[in-house]
């Protein structure tokens, strides 16, 4: 069942990379790294919002790491549930074309004040990804040169991918008919 074997290889490789990379980051940033998860299908670290910009530059310029390809910035909205507070998670997926390892970095933000420094000066790919995360999830990236909506119309109200988003009944007179 070889599909499982490429899966298993990928998971094992991810774990080995994490065990090599996470101690380097922990040593440099100490308390900035809030949580490390080495055992998931995709290992990730959760960092504090304050160190995001410094971490981004370190990840790109440090020789051993050289994460030069920003693959994706994803925003996930978690509503408050019985045991957990609500939060918005912004996840950065990074790749290295030199060392062939990858990294998943998460930042946890409060739902009513989701803002984060922009990393577009570190990876130019972040430009459009941050615009999309702002447009759909409502995360404000400070320092972005032009944070305007990219997929929805410019005068759209609300952030559609939030879990408490209410679909508007009409837009410029065009009604939203539900049969």
């Amino acid at each position, binding site marked *: *069942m*070889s*599909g*499982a*074997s*490429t*899966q298993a*290889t*990928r998971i094992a490789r991810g774990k080995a990379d994490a065990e090599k990379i996470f101690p380097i980051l922990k040593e440099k940033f100490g308390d900035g790294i809030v949580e490390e998860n080495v055992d*998931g*299908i*995709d290992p990730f670290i959760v960092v504090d919002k304050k160190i995001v910009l410094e971490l981004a530059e370190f990840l790109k310029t440090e020789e051993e790491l050289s994460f*030069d*390809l*920003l*693959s*994706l910035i*994803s*925003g*996930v*909205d978690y509503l408050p549930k019985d045991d957990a507070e609500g939060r918005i998670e912004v*996840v950065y*997926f990074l790749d290295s*074309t030199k060392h*062939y390892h990858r990294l*998943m970095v998460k930042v946890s933000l409060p739902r009513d004040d989701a803002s984060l420094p922009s990393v577009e000066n570190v*990876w*130019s*790919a972040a*430009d*459009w*990804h941050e615009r*999309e995360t702002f447009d*759909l999830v409502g995360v404000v990236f400070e320092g972005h040169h032009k944070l305007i*909506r*990219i*997929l*929805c*119309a410019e005068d759209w109200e609300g952030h*559609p*991918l939030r879990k408490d988003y209410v679909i508007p009944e009409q837009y410029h007179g065009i009604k939203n008919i539900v049969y």
Partner: protein
Amino acid sequence: MPATDDIRTEEMLLNMGPQHPSTHGVFRVVIRTDGEMILETESHIGYLHRCFEKIAENVSYLQVVPYTDRMDYLAAMINNLGFAEGVEKLMQLEVPERAQYIRIIVCELNRIASHLLAFGTYGMDLGAITPFLHAFRDREKLLKIFEKICGQRLNYSYVRIGGVAFDITEEMLRDIEDFCNYFEPEVLDEFDRLLSYNGIFIARTANVGVIPKEMAIDFGLTGPNLRGSGVKRDLRKDEPYCIYDRFTFDVPVGSGENGTTGDCWDRYMVRIREMRQSINIVRQALAAVPDGSFIDKKASKTVKPPKGEVYHKVEGARGELGFHIVSDGTAIPYRVKTRGPSFCNISILDSMTQDGGVMLADVVAIIGSLDIVMGEVDR
């Protein structure tokens, strides 16, 4: 004749609107030009936004599969594969061997179909009408094969979670083998004679739209665009998924043969050479398809992954196609975020034109060489 000091020389703001024969979909570029030279462009996307990610949060995993087809509608099998494999990774599901080989065959055939369309329409954008008809003649043969396999020509929903939707018969395998023997080497050589080394084509694409290696990586370019700039990065080799580790094939890389490394000609040539490699892979797979079941019937009926999240990447026809799937333990996904390769590829256009030296006709050549499909950009 009017005197020459009457000629107006101010800048012009030109709208290459959402409806345009050369923008490969609904893509709007607002261009500020000084005569023929471009000063600045501003891209606007979102005309094909169909809220795939919001819909995926309201339907079950099995129902999401047809929506994934419609993202990159020219290479739909690969989209299905990315999503199916992501969910299988979350569920720790093993897919039968026969299904794995069938997946490889259809995905590589779909890559060829997608590159054929890219090749044909690129020639047509630049004024070469004949290669378009040749490309579509061969694409039609592929679409007939797909219609035999799963009943659909374009949006297949064939690769499902747990395997593939229908079994593939001996007759279909023979048809695929006949296609491979017909296509390579004669037809591919014909394309080279028709377009690749044509003087006018080279004049319009070589040294045009040069993307240096560092800029390509910085902007998150992937797929044939990144390989055209000289970076040898292919997910099928670097991070193998499905059973790609069992096949031997080359990864063509641009090297500035007719101009500079990273120009439009390099990106175009990488796609032509990739078609040859895809036929190579299909031939190897055809020789080794085992018997067995084509889907894990039990697991594919009730898809309820445990709580967790995964990011699965596959090598789409246009680059790295990624699915970030977050599951909360129910039969409905919590969040499905897609990384469409064309979204990142087209974001480089504004930075390429701001340094000057790009002429109005070059914008068409650049957009065509980046090979975008708006379904993926907007989702």
